[in-house]
């Protein structure tokens, strides 16, 4: 009975406190709005990245499902499987469901479409494109394929046909390696989930072989097998063929984008950490401004626990509303991010079509948890402080400031301890990205805790300088130090935000500079020649005799030739470059492990392998180890790793074989690229393409194929453009983080200056002009921005080193040299300064517009 009465009293007290909170925000709507906005933006960014990653993963899963259908295994061979061999397999095992597949890419305007060649008669058991084996879709697909009478007929995924505004019988043009081709839409197909098949066109396998210049070869044979059948078949295959589980291929492809997606998530979490500081900022202001009110309530009998519950309840209510809005905003931001992300995945990994955004319950719950959790953690510190402060002390502002100043020291000590823990975590020899992120977060939070002490120390140290600037600068700087409970949090929030942008800028700049240097080294030839290809794929080859013919041209000093292909290895299929080097090719590869000269010689003459740095890092491989490759001649065969070379072209790793080694174990004399050294590079270059028309003509007479001829310099420039495009999404996220920071500093300064309305009124009553007050407000804002900018640099720099040497190394496997881009230090300080000044404009205007007499009367 007693308990229930107590409970009811407690409930009514909480109700009163809630009404008081509501009234406070009714009087300060801008502050409420900015608190909400800070959370909305933070949650919005995190949710947008979660949606983007989930959508890309879903599209990937659907596409894989569409392409592989029910197939459980695939037979692959080093150089593809000939039609004859496929026929042999079918005759030998008529009991097995098997289907031949060719997969390639064709251009269509600025899109890349996936062209699938299949045998309609073999398809019925595979339920490809999301259709079940006995469904109407499968039937219509089969019948459509059987009805091909037009030699250029294809069936088109329904969403693609809709986007291209095609009806059956309409024609459209695609880009193929050998030129353009007009195709006819013979029909469309749709699947249960239309996103699964978006961007696909399907045709008969024989036509696909012709269009993709594959000769009488298919890419793979797909099968539906149980474990016993798979085991038996595997044993019966010759050494030159391999039975691969479909899951292996799927997981290899998924692993490719994992690092990229984790990096995006890291950026979004960084935004949330910045958002967390800002939420803490908003919440602590809202609480600090009501310390006297809480004191009055405590005097009237409200318990500390009730004050705590009231503040946390308020934070919960605000964060729930803001987080829901944040999830909605995230969905909108994701619309923009997805196209950038897809473009990056297409540039770097494989062709992916994302048709719909995934806003599943998991994403919503994670977004809400991020916003509500961060807000509650941020509010807890302020709530505990307000609840634990004695009612008498709470009414003395100077005591609050003194307490805060006293607290800065132990806080800084705790911060240093956190940073040291982060350092130890980062230093641990682990490949775990999670550990890397934990180190990054510890560093940020630790530094954030040391900032109030640093601000206090720097402000104190700068006091003599400020005195030289006159009374106003003394007042402005003095109030930063004196109002440390308010200014400390605001400056820390801005500093963390600016440090994040500076750190990412240094990371991108270092990466760009490393790639730039690497491109300069790698592109050691003057001119590169290749058969035409389309974006995202293309497998056109040059004739084997072209190297000798090019070498005979009078302009040419030396020629290297390269063949790019996939080689199946014990760790999955890997990008491989088969190189027949010219005399300066060794300068193209920066060898990171092994003795450079002997490694190159071993590779060139003794059948060794060179592997790229990401491959070595991710699989723990090093010079001297063996790697099993699947060869045509002997099946699985170990190759010794002679060295590790720097390579930024592929994050999932690359192999390099010497041509003579390759010829010993594989039968493929195709050439993908030629690297040409000219006798007189200056004479044969031209400003636009780097290749003179005379030389272009000479080269084109050597083959019927329209060759792609580009100078090393042009490729260098284009590659950097692709690099910049790849990091577009990171830059966008960086700007969004700055947006969050701006809202935070704006809200902090607004709250700070509005709280000081009475102080400004006293200044005005004591003879301060409007201009002086404006100057004071802007000076203080500017000084806060300057402090934030300067204090952001050490954290930003250390953050960049962690991103470069821990996060990127663990995500992508490549090392790079840390470089602080020109102007980035000044830009960071300028950014903080401008953000703070802009944020100070409105408060300055508001202060001067407010009624002086009322300002002197009001608390």
């Amino acid at each position, binding site marked *: 009975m007693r308990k229930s009465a107590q409970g009811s009293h407690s409930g009514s007290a909480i109700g009163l406190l809630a009404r008081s909170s509501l009234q406070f925000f009714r009087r300060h709507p801008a502050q409420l709005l900015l608190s909400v906005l800070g959370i909305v933006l933070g949650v919005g960014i995190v949710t947008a990245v979660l949606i983007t990653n989930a959508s890309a993963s879903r599209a990937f899963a659907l596409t894989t499902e569409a392409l592989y259908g029910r197939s459980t295994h695939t037979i692959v061979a080093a150089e593809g499987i000939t039609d004859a061999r496929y026929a042999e397999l079918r005759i030998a095992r008529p009991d097995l469901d098997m289907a031949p597949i060719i997969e390639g890419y064709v251009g269509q305007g600025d899109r890349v479409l996936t062209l699938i060649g299949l045998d309609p008669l073999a398809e019925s058991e595979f339920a490809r494109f999301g259709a079940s084996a006995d469904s109407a879709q499968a039937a219509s697909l089969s019948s459509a394929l059987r009805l091909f009478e037009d030699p250029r007929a294809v069936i088109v995924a329904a969403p693609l046909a809709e986007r291209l505004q095609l009806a059956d019988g309409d024609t459209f043009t695609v880009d193929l390696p050998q030129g353009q081709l007009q195709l006819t839409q013979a029909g469309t197909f749709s699947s249960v989930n239309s996103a699964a098949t978006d961007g696909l066109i399907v045709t008969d396998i024989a036509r696909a072989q012709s269009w993709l210049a594959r000769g009488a070869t298919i890419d793979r044979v797909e099968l539906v097998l149980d474990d016993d059948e798979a085991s038996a078949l595997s044993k019966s295959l010759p050494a030159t063929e391999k039975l691969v589980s479909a899951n292996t291929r799927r997981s290899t492809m998924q692993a490719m984008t994992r690092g990229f997606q984790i990096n995006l998530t890291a950026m979004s979490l960084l935004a949330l950490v910045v958002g967390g500081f800002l939420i803490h900022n908003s919440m602590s202001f809202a609480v600090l401004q009501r310390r006297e009110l809480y004191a009055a309530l405590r005097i009237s009998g409200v318990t500390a626990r009730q004050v705590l519950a009231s503040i946390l309840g308020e934070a919960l209510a605000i964060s729930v509303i803001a987080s829901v809005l944040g999830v909605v905003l995230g969905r909108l931001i994701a619309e923009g991010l997805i196209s950038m992300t897809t473009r990056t995945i297409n540039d770097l990994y494989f062709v992916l079509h994302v048709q719909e955004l995934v806003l599943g319950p998991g994403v919503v719950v994670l977004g809400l948890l991020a916003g509500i959790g961060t807000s509650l953690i941020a509010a807890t510190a302020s709530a505990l402080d307000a609840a634990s402060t004695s009612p008498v002390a709470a*009414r*003395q*502002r*100077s*005591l609050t*400031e*003194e307490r805060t100043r006293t607290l800065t020291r132990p806080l800084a000590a705790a911060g240093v301890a956190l940073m040291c823990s982060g350092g130890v975590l980062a230093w641990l020899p682990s490949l775990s990205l999670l550990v890397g992120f934990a180190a990054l977060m510890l560093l940020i939070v630790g530094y954030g805790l040391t900032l109030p002490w640093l601000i206090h120390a720097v402000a104190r140290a700068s006091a003599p300088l400020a*005195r030289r600037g*006159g*009374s106003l600068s*003394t*007042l402005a700087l*003095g*109030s930063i130090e*004196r*109002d440390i409970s308010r200014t400390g949090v605001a400056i820390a929030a801005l500093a963390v935000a600016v440090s994040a942008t500076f750190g990412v800028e240094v990371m991108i700049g270092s990466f760009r500079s490393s790639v730039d240097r690497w491109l300069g080294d790698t592109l050691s030839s003057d001119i590169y020649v290749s058969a035409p290809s389309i974006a995202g794929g293309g497998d056109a080859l040059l004739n084997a005799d072209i190297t000798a013919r090019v070498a005979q041209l009078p302009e040419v000093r030396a020629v290297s030739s390269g063949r790019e292909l996939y080689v199946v290895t014990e760790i999955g299929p890997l990008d491989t470059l088969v190189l027949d080097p010219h005399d300066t090719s060794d300068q193209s590869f920066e060898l990171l492990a092994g003795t450079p000269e002997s490694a190159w010689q071993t590779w060139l003459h003794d059948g060794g392998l060179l592997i790229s740095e990401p491959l070595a890092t991710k699989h723990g491989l090093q010079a001297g180890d063996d790697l099993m490759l699947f060869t045509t001649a002997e099946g699985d065969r170990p190759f010794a790793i002679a060295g590790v070379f720097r390579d930024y072209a592929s994050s999932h790793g690359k192999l390099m074989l010497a041509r003579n080694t390759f010829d010993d174990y594989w039968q493929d004399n195709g050439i993908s690229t030629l690297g040409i050294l000219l006798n007189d590079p200056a004479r044969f270059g031209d400003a636009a393409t780097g290749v003179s028309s005379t030389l272009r003509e000479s080269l084109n007479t050597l083959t019927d194929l329209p060759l792609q001829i580009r100078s090393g310099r042009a490729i260098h420039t284009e590659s950097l453009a692709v690099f910049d495009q790849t990091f577009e999404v990171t830059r966008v996220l960086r700007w969004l983080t700055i947006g969050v920071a701006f809202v935070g500093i704006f809200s902090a300064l607004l709250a700070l200056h509005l709280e000081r309305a*009475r*102080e400004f*009124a*006293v*200044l*005005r*009553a*004591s*003879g*301060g*002009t*409007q*201009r*002086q007050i404006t100057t004071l407000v802007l000076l203080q804002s500017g000084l806060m921005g300057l402090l934030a900018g300067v204090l952001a640099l050490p954290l930003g720099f250390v953050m960049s080193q962690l991103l470069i040497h821990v996060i990127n190394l663990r995500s992508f496997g490549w090392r790079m040299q840390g470089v602080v881009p020109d102007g980035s230090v000044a830009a960071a300080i300028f950014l903080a300064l401008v953000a703070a000044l802009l944020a100070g404009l409105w408060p300055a205007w508001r202060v001067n517009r407010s*009624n*002086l*007499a009322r300002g*002197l*009367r009001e608390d």
Partner: protein
Amino acid sequence: MSEPAVVVSGLGHAYHRAGSLQTILDNIDLEVGRGETLALLGASGSGKSTLLNVIGGLEPVQIGEVHVLGHSLGALDDHARTLLRRSTIGFVHQAFNLISTLSVVDNVSLPLALAGVSTASRHERAAQLLDSVGLDGRGNDWPDRLSGGEQQRVAIARALAARPPVILADEPTGNLDATSGQNVMRLLAGLVAEQQTTLIIVTHSLEVAGFADRVCALRAGVVSPVDMQATRAAGAW
């Protein structure tokens, strides 16, 4: 005879409240001589604080004229009024209005800082004033650690810092107990007498009014002289 320090003639003032215009002052006439102490009595809401704010240039003159040391406030914009206030007027408020995050000495020297006086000079002046209000050695304290009486003495020191010829005090003892109020008033009256400063005190306390050379009342928008003896005899204002 020298020109009065403050001349108010035909002053009217109104506020927009809840969508309607509410008249606070209506056709007020008042003169305060140089060096004179005037107490302005009035009930709460009678407009006495508004009158003080208009004389101090904190609010613009809406109707009529206000002259302070010969300067017509109606002809001055906010900036000019501020500069005039800086050089000629000191304020003492009921709620002290000290800046809690500035030390006592910084609070006192605030008007001098705004006037661009050097740090050394203003600290010297502040120390002198703190000595004269009995707070010698308390310059480095925080204002909110002082008693109410001490805080008001700091506010008086601040009002006198720039040696203004006019001091406006709005209920200077309103937040103090009787003894502290008496002490503060004695101090204020003594200092203004010593410096030949004009003092206008707005109050509803007869004790405070007792320190004035002349007492007026503001009732229903009209200023009229008060016979202190008769009022005291009646027992209340």
